[in-house]
């Protein structure tokens, strides 16, 4: 109570300070007069009396000062005073403040943004219950070396019945289906799931019920669950959706439930339907088309589960040698599986942005040092007036903290904008983008970091500047500066060298990435993309399950396409080009007399016009013709590399290859009738693989079709609509998806590396800009320090060129030192990104030399401006200067 009252009185007194001050002064004056009167009464003269009274009263200024301390909140007030003064200092030097705040904002904002991204995508657990126990399985089979395969139903059931490590397991597969009951036919993502799929994630439908074991996909239709996104966007969040019938792939599905918001595995906008297994899929162990999810028992480690899976795989291999010999099951945490390759990209970006932050801090430290040096005189005067060093250091620290706070606030803005930008610009294949935001904890951390940076950046200069010899500094600058001669290697120079080295490493990394990207894009894919368009069709099994119907569709579609005047060439194939997917065919080189293990070859079925349409040249033999149909003899066209690999020094034409059919397991022999040039049609960065082509009309089952058309005109919209019309003339219920130019598709295939390279270059550019400011600052300062020296030199007849060289030389020395350290750092660090590079080595001499030279050039440019100022020094003014 008493404390509260005292606090209140302090507040009241604080706001009445000026009145209190006046009254106190009046009181003390009164006191003096009374005392003087008393002294006079004792016989002193008037002057003596006043003097004595004053002496007895003591130092009245000090006493008033002490009295004032009693009134308010002295500690707080002195901090506020520092703060006010700090703000005034910042306002008085707007250029300095702006650069320092922007520098910090840039470094801190970029780091916070990238760290938020890393946190959201890589570090944070998936947003499901006990998500760290969720595991996904892959199969590796010697039949398909180098590939991760899904599971077959029979293997899955064996694993499920034998496992101890998993408490639950479920199968699912992602599928596309055509929704035709909701307006124009549309291709939608459907997930076929086994009962128990949702329970794996601890998720229940928000509305309606889950898929139950009885819900099989019969011919008469089945049930479907809608994801939250589908329900909201396609069905306007219809509250009476349950019980509604949808037509998917010509079959009726009844909506029985809606999934809760935030559940987005494996796709945000999906229709969940029960598993629909063909007879083969149910009975054949080699039909590995199902993704498997498992939930580990609490306390079971992934390694233990893996050991158990190895045992199961070995047992299955000996039990079912025909299908499972040599198989391995790989358990991967669902999170790692979801993140995939994005982790390494993000870690590279995080490393780069940390460098940027260090450069930013060094730069701010440098600016503060420069500022402190300019204020040396002010500080000396304060010290001379009795200000303690602690107080001066505190004042300087408050100023740098103020900068750090403003920089931190601006940095948060940069971070939020940066994360939004990342979300908007990032290529779609980056996982978990929808979870991305700047977390409050990270924002706080950024602020704390800013404060620490403020203290560190401020403390060194503060201690540095306050370590002044009073008399020296207060004397003439001439006396203080000259005897020491040109400044030795100062803290500031050290910081600039540090910045240069970091910026060089950043630049090298980004230059290597840029070159990789350019070289990737320069790769000749082996076909011509000029005005080439592609589109995708899915042939629903219900309508095109039998071979005749599918072949009829292909023939009628091709007739339509060829009749279009705006399309010069048209072709269809069953697999796309350059979308990262490939069709595989197991091939046993043993059948040709090679002593090698079975391998996989790329295998594509194409119509007769495919090669001419996309521009793959024929090397020998013939293309397919309209006569190569199912009933005719089975033929093949092989790629050049396949011919070289398996028929070295021979003419492959007329030779036969024995290929095992995935479908029936029977072997068919196909005769080679042509050899075509290699293409890179999976990934631009991958070498062309040996490839087989068969006639599309000799393919027993066609699930999806990819159209390739070369246009006569450059009107994408018109072409898209003619493609749709062609398809709809043949089948009005078939959606036409992924209509795009092949050039755009290729560009899309490098979207992720491009984005990453772009960001890295942005960071390198920012780092370079900051370093430039640093060099400029140091050289400018040095020129201003050496004004008199330069004046003397000029007065003694030194030519301007020599002065220019003197200053430039100083900049060059710093740049060379920084470049040397940065070069060493680059050689050590670029090895980290070796796996991300294409067509260029981490220690590429041309790149390194180029980067170092441009760095030196830019450093010289930054030194040139102050150097030119130095040459304009007028000796008369310089020598009179202070």
């Amino acid at each position, binding site marked *: 109570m008493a404390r509260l009252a005292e606090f209140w009185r302090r507040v009241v007194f604080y706001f009445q300070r000026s009145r209190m001050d006046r009254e106190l002064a009046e*009181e003390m004056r009164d006191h003096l007069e*009374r005392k003087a009167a008393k002294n006079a009464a004792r016989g002193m003269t008037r002057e003596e009396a006043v003097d004595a009274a004053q002496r007895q009263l003591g130092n009245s200024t000090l006493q008033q000062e002490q009295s004032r*301390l009693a009134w308010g909140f002295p500690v707080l007030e002195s901090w506020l005073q520092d703060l006010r003064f700090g703000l005034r200092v910042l306002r008085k030097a707007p250029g300095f403040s702006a650069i320092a705040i922007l520098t910090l904002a840039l470094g801190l904002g970029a780091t916070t943004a990238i760290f938020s991204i890393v946190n959201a995508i890589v570090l944070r657990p998936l947003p499901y219950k006990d998500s760290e126990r969720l595991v996904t399985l892959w199969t590796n089979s010697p039949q398909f070396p180098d590939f991760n395969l899904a599971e077959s139903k029979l293997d899955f059931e064996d694993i499920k019945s034998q496992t101890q490590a998993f408490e639950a397991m479920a199968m699912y597969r992602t599928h596309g289906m055509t929704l035709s009951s909701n307006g124009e036919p549309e291709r939608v993502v459907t997930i076929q799931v086994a009962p128990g799929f949702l329970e794996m994630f601890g998720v229940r439908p928000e509305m309606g019920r889950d898929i139950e074991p009885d819900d099989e996909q019969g011919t008469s239709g089945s049930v479907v669950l809608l994801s939250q996104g589908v329900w909201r966007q396609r069905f306007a969040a219809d509250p009476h959706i349950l019980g509604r019938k949808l037509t998917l792939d010509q079959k009726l599905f009844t909506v029985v439930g809606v999934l809760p918001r935030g559940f987005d595995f494996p796709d945000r906008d999906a229709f969940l339907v029960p598993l629909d297994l063909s007879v083969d899929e149910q009975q054949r162990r080699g039909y590995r088309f199902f993704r498997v999810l498992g939930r580990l028992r609490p306390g079971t480690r992934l390694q233990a589960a893996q050991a158990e899976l190895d045992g199961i795989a070995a047992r299955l291999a000996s039990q079912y040698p025909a299908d499972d010999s040599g198989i391995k099951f790989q358990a991967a945490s669902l999170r790692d599986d979801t993140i995939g390759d994005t982790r390494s990209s993000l870690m590279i970006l995080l490393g780069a942005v940390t460098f940027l932050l260090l450069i930013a801090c060094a730069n701010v430290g440098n600016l503060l040092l420069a500022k402190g040096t300019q204020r040396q005189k002010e500080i000396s005067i304060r010290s001379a007036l009795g200000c303690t060093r602690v107080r001066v250091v505190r004042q300087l620290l408050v100023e740098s903290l103020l900068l750090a706070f403003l920089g931190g606030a601006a940095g948060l803005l940069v971070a939020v904008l940066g994360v939004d930008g990342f979300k908007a610009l990032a290529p779609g294949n980056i996982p978990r983008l929808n979870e991305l935001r700047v977390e409050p904890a990270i924002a706080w951390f950024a602020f704390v970091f800013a404060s620490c940076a403020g203290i560190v950046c401020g403390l060194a200069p503060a201690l540095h500047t306050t370590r002044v010899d009073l008399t020296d500094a207060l004397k003439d600058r001439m006396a203080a500066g000259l005897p020491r001669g040109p400044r030795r290697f100062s803290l500031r120079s050290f910081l600039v060298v540090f910045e240069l080295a970091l910026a060089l490493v950043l630049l090298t990394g980004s230059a290597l990435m840029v070159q990789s990207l350019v070289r990737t894009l320069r790769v000749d894919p082996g076909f011509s993309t000029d005005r080439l368009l592609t589109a995708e069709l899915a042939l629903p099994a219900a309508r095109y399950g039998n071979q005749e119907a599918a072949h009829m569709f292909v023939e009628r579609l091709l007739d339509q396409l060829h009749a279009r005047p705006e399309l010069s060439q048209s072709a269809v194939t069953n697999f796309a080009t350059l979308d990262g997917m490939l069709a595989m065919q197991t091939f046993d080189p043993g059948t040709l007399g090679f002593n090698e293990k079975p391998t996989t070859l790329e295998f594509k079925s194409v119509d007769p016009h495919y090669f001419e349409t996309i521009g793959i040249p024929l090397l020998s033999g013939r293309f397919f013709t309209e006569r190569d149909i199912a009933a005719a003899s089975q033929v093949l066209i092989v790629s050049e590399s396949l011919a070289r690999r398996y028929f070295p020094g021979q003419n492959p034409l007329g030779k036969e290859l024995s290929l095992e059919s995935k479908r029936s397991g029977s072997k068919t022999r196909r005769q080679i009738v042509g050899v075509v040039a290699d293409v890179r049609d999976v990934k631009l960065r991958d070498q062309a693989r040996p490839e087989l082509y068969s006639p599309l009309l000799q393919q027993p089952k066609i699930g999806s079709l990819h159209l390739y058309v070369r246009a006569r005109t450059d009107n994408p919209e018109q072409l898209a609509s003619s493609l749709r019309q062609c398809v709809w003339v043949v089948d009005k219920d078939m959606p036409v998806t992924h209509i795009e130019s092949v050039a755009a598709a290729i560009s899309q295939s490098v979207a992720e590396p491009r984005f990453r390279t772009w960001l890295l270059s942005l960071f390198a550019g920012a780092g370079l800009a900051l370093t430039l400011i640093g060099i400029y600052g140091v050289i400018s300062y040095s020129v201003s320090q050496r004004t008199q020296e330069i004046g003397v030199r000029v007065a003694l007849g030194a030519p301007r060129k020599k002065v220019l060289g003197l200053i430039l030389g100083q900049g060059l020395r710093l740049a060379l030192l920084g470049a040397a350290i940065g070069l060493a750092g680059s050689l050590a660090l670029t090895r980290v990104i070796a796996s991300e590079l294409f067509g260029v080595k981490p220690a590429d001499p041309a790149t390194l030399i180029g980067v170092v030279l441009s760095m030196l050039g830019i450093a010289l440019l930054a030194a040139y401006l102050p150097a030119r100022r130095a040459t304009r020094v007028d000796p008369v003014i310089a020598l009179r200067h202070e």
Partner: protein
Amino acid sequence: MVRPASKNELLPGTLEMLILQTLTRGAMHGYGIAQHIQEMSDEVLQVEEGSLYPALQRLLVKGWVKGEWGTSDNNRRARYYTLTSAGKKQLGIEAENFDRMIRAIARVMQTA
């Protein structure tokens, strides 16, 4: 920037106690308090008179004395300080503490 520079010969903290004690006689202005302390101590306690004022400000803030402007004997404006009830209580505590300390010192001096 502020250095406590009181040169009075008093034990620390005693000045405030002396002021409180002086004010038990009734309202007084600053000069009066100073004169009283000097006279009562037979000029032994040479208070630097000015240091009285910061002490009075502290007592005001603590709420132990109250200050009111009035007219003095020679028709001049002066601030008269009076003891509050909290001040009286505080005086009691300080006097007791002081007493205990003096006795303790005295005991040490006698036995040594």
